[in-house]
C-alpha cells in the first residue's frame, strides 16, 4: 500500500518582492514625463472681420528677412522693443501693434518680437499679411 505522505506546503520565496517593486518604482519615476505645453497664445481675427482703425492708434512693426526690426519707421533692436512699447502704451492704451513680416523672415525672429510685445503687456496685436512678392 502506498503510504500517503504529507508534504509541507512550500512557500514562495518573497524576499525579492521588495526589490522588484522598487525596480518598477524607479522605472516609472524615470519614464514619467510631466509634459507641459507652454507657448505664446494669441487669438486670430475671424475671417472677413477687418476693422478700420484710426491711423494714430497703430504702431507698425516690420521684421525683415534678416531679423532686423523697424518700429514706426525707426530701426530698433529687438531687446529694446518692450521698453519702447511700454512707454507708448502708457501714453495711449488703445494702441494696436501691427506686426508685419517678410515671407522669408525666420519664425524665431517673429516669436522674439511677439515675446517683447507680451512683455510690455500689449494686448492688441495684429498680424498683418506679408505683401505678396
Amino acid at each position: 500500500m502506498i503510504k500517503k505522505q504529507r508534504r509541507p506546503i512550500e512557500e514562495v520565496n518573497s524576499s525579492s518582492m521588495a526589490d522588484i517593486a522598487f525596480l518598477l518604482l524607479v522605472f516609472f519615476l524615470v519614464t514619467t514625463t510631466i509634459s507641459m505645453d507652454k507657448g505664446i497664445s494669441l487669438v486670430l481675427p475671424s475671417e472677413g472681420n477687418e476693422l478700420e482703425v484710426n491711423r494714430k492708434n497703430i504702431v507698425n512693426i516690420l521684421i525683415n528677412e534678416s531679423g532686423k526690426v523697424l518700429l514706426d519707421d525707426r530701426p530698433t533692436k529687438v531687446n529694446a522693443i518692450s521698453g519702447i512699447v511700454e512707454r507708448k502704451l502708457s501714453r495711449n492704451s488703445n494702441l494696436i501693434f501691427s506686426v508685419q513680416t517678410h515671407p522669408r523672415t525666420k519664425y524665431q525672429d517673429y516669436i522674439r518680437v511677439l515675446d517683447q510685445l507680451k512683455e510690455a503687456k500689449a494686448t492688441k496685436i495684429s498680424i498683418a499679411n506679408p505683401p505678396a512678392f
Partner: protein
Amino acid sequence: MLLIFFMVTTVMREYEGLDIIMPRAKMIEKLESKRHTSYVWATKDGLVSVDDRIININDLSGLMYSKIVKDPKITVSLKADEKTTMKLITDIHSQLRTANALKLSYSALTKAP
C-alpha cells in the same frame, strides 16, 4: 503607493512629432488643457503635420474645421521650428482663419535666464 501613483500617471508617448527645434521665449503661458488642444507641426523644410500625418497645407483648413465642429473649445498649438519661414506660418494663419480655429498658441521653450 508611490509605485501605483507613477504607474497610473505615466503616459507612454503616443507619437512623436516632426524633428523641430522650438524657439525660446520669456513670456510664455501654460495651455489651458491638453484635451482641447490640437497640435500642428511645421518644420523648416515646409512640412506640415497634424495628428502624426504629413498633410498638404491647403488641406489644413478642412481638417481643422472638422476638429472645430467636434470640439469648439479647441486651441491650436503650433509647434514650429525656429527656422521656419514666415510664409509658411502666414499660410497656416490663413488656413486656421478659414477654419475658424482662432485660438492659437505658439509653442515655445522657456528662455534660460
